[in-house]
């Protein structure tokens, strides 16, 4: 059964000192615009890491529905670290595809900026391997720093290749009114930024953001009742990997991404070359470089040189990666990220992305990752008639 996204909305990502998690959730729903048939929604999946503990932890999803005055349908909290949103979307898509429900809500929300910097770092590390990675004094900046260190040691990337990812994504983010960091940065700025976890500096890392995102997923029959421009979810895949980076055969690859992508490509009947626009999980610059390779877009050995030549950027022609600004510039409210990728691509495939529109975008891919790749989802979307 064909599945479509029929509506999508997200809050601005960034600082929302006056909005709590419930208000952020409701704001994302409001951003879908009027005319959403809430009576038709039969189930809700809401992704969140639930940072901070200063919020409703038990019965999290029903509490959000309650506040937003949605119908009292079954509601489930989905948690897979930074891939919570991607897995919430996957659950909604699979529920509709199975024929069990005709319409589902997938949402994600995170409230991170109520926390002090120190407590924020506490939460940023809880999805890694607690007993070894964390007890060695690592948060994810350190785990991705290890990947980057090894790639540099093997001579497979240059330091400037990492920086090029940040430069591109900030350029895109500057065009996105919903982005957390709306400013362009130079290669020199990235290289001169204060060190965090060598070789990664402050500008190789995504910010911590507040935000929420939501999409409505419907079966084909219902999709046509709700919109004349459905965005089809034609392929999906998900996978797990070892929790700790050190347990993997290679610390410079992301096997879960590769396996999730292979399943999604096969299901959609498309390959990497058929993708026009992609939202790729770039929590740290090195993640995007590795993902470009694992998703089949570009061998790692070429990625830096191609970025240097302007590839994967808006206006360059060819595949555009992270037109939203990615996690790097758009921001990373953990549970919201995976759903927000779908929100961006929904607009891209409807031709509604304004200054960030990828011309002629017909096929899109979203890749969302939990932790250092212990969980991953890949979704492939197609424009109607695309």
């Amino acid at each position: 059964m064909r599945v479509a996204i029929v509506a999508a909305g997200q809050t601005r990502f960034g600082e929302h000192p006056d909005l709590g998690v419930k208000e952020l959730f409701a704001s994302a729903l409001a951003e879908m615009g009027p005319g959403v048939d809430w009576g038709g929604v039969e189930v809700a999946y809401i992704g969140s890491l639930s940072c901070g503990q200063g919020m409703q932890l038990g019965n999290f999803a029903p509490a959000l529905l309650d506040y937003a005055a949605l119908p009292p349908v079954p509601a489930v909290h989905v948690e897979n670290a930074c891939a919570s949103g991607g897995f919430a979307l996957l659950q909604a898509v699979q529920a509709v595809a199975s024929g069990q429900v005709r319409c589902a809500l997938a949402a994600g929300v995170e409230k991170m900026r109520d926390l002090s910097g120190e407590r924020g770092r506490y939460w940023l590390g809880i999805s890694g391997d607690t007993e070894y990675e964390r007890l060695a004094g690592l948060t994810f900046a350190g785990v991705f720093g290890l990947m980057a260190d090894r790639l540099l040691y093997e001579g497979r990337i240059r330091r400037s290749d990492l920086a090029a990812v940040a430069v591109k994504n900030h350029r895109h983010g500057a065009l996105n009114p919903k982005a957390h960091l709306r400013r362009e940065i130079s290669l020199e700025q990235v290289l001169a930024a204060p060190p965090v976890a060598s070789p990664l500096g402050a500008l190789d890392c995504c910010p911590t953001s507040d935000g929420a995102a939501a999409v409505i997923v419907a079966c084909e029959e219902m999709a046509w009742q709700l919109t004349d421009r459905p965005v089809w979810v034609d392929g999906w895949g998900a996978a797990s990997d070892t929790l700790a980076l050190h347990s993997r055969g290679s610390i410079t690859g992301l096997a879960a991404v590769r396996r999730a992508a292979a399943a999604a490509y096969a299901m959609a009947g498309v390959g990497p070359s058929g993708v026009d626009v992609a939202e790729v999980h770039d929590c740290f610059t090195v993640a995007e470089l590795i993902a470009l390779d694992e998703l089949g877009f570009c061998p790692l050995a070429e990625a830096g040189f191609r970025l240097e030549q302007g590839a994967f950027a808006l206006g360059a022609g060819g595949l555009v990666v992270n037109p939203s600004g990615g996690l790097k510039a758009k921001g990373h409210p953990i549970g919201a990220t995976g759903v927000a990728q779908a929100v961006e691509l929904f607009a891209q495939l409807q031709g509604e992305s304004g200054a960030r529109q990828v011309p002629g975008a017909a096929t899109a891919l979203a890749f969302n990752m939990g932790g250092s790749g212990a969980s991953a989802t890949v979704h492939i979307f197609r424009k109607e008639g695309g």
Partner: protein
Amino acid sequence: MGAHITAPMYRRSLPQRLRLEGGRCGACGVTQFPPRAACPRCRGPLEPVRLSGRGQVVAATFITPAGAPPEFAGQARQTGGYWVAIVALAEGPCITAQLTQAAAPGAPVMAVVRRLYEEDGVVRYGFKFAPQGVGDP
């Protein structure tokens, strides 16, 4: 903030943290560290085995105060930062731990027990890796 690693949780990991007790698959002979419920290759049962602590750095990162989790913030501030590495142990498995001093990929290292941090009034000890050679038996 509640205990990140509770004292009982820490206690359960002492065979690994202080004695590097891993698991060796009786069926296929592959060594795991830390041990798992079963061999990931053949799902055979694991038998305890004490590892030598010798290994080689695979990758290393220097964590500044800006990148340190709160329980290590004191150490990071005091020393300006610390090195963390993935080390390939001589028996095969890789593990993440701090380095007592800078070491590049390929450097031979040896596990030593050090103070990691203190929480709930309980000092957490565990292995770190030091350059191989000096003082080794």
